[in-house]
């Protein structure tokens, strides 16, 4: 059976991290499997974990009373879900729901925060990786807001 450090090494989020750091982080991780419909996280609940998705799809959702759950984004193999564990008040801002069977590595945020405080060099590396993910998600959200496919090009003359 594959060990947690090996799983971490294979995940794109931890690509090129030093083996010693992976071993250090692995102490906060465990293997987790979710069935379709299970929640990995629920809005306003304590954000004690984050997830490295190894296989499967996770819907990042919010809820509107008049429309029910609204999926904002889907995450897939190789993606990361969750950064609410990094900042107070350590609560989830969105739901995370498994859309099919999800295999993930669940990392304990509190454990990792303590390790990062004890080892600031590792903390900086982790923050760099999360900052990159957050930037990519922000950019994607901005493009999504542009509603580009609905936009008729005003100068096209109509070529389609």
């Amino acid at each position, binding site marked *: 059976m594959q060990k947690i450090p090996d799983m971490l090494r294979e995940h794109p989020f931890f690509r090129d991290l030093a083996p010693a750091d992976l071993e250090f982080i692995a102490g906060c991780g465990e293997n987790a499997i979710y069935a379709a419909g299970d929640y990995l996280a629920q809005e306003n609940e304590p954000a004690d974990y984050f997830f490295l998705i190894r296989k499967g799809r996770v819907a990042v959702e919010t809820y509107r009373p008049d429309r029910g759950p609204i999926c904002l984004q889907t995450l897939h193999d190789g993606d990361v879900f969750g950064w609410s564990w990094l900042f107070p008040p350590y609560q989830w801002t969105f739901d995370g729901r498994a859309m099919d069977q999800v295999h993930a590595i669940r990392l304990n945020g509190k454990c990792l925060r303590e390790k990062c405080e004890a080892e600031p060099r590792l903390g900086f590396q982790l923050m760099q990786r999360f900052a990159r993910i957050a930037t990519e998600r922000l950019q994607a959200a901005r493009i999504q807001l542009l509603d*580009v496919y609905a936009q008729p090009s005003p100068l096209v003359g109509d070529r389609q």
Partner: protein
Amino acid sequence: MIPQMYRIEHRQEEYPGTFTLHLSPEQDDSDAFRPGQFNMLYAFGAGEVPISMSGPESRDGSLVHTIRTQGQVTAALERLRRGDQVGVRGPFGNGWPLEIAAGSDLVIIAGGLGLAPLRPVIYSVLRSGIQTSRVRLFYGARRPAERLFQSELERWMQALELVQSVDHAVDEWQGHIGVITDPLQAAEFDAARTVAFVCGPEIMMRFCIRTLRQAGVPESAIFLSMERNMKCATGHCGHCQWGPNFVCKDGPVFCYGDIRQWFNIRAL
């Protein structure tokens, strides 16, 4: 050029406001076209619009055009029904460089209506008109119901690697939710072998090009179909001038390496 008369054989609603016309010539002297070229479609009493071919190359001169209603002429075309006449001038433009795609890992990136000019490329690939080592289609749309050629997309899943992404969807949707650059970013590219054909809203193409470049795909291997205000389609009126190029005559397909400096000028 005088328009040739065509008749509508079949009309298909893709989704509200977007439809496909299947046309057959009234005379048997129509020209063959290359995937990526366009025709000027003449709705009598309303005017002409440039519309890309969205169907297969045919021996009998029949044509397929997929059109979104967004102006007076396209609204007039939308009102036409089976048996009605349409004037056709063309084909115009250069088309996709299929010969460059031969032997490559072909990445086709389409956004919204941008799948229409790329469908003839997919037909060419599927009937082995061009031999590629790998074919991937990334298709982004607003919603699942606002995708073109939905029954064909189902079939294409068996024949090529298809990644679909929509901005909004409900539970039954099996593809990605989010922007098309997300799955593109997650994809692995053999940068030296990749050739990319991109067509969609210009802003989408801009972000896709950025993602392709980050993956190491060279500028010379990225081709995009541009849209500008084309009127005469023969490079005389100047409406579609774009830097030193006329989109109707020198394009609409351009190699990104050749037009990068014009692509990034905001006023053009």
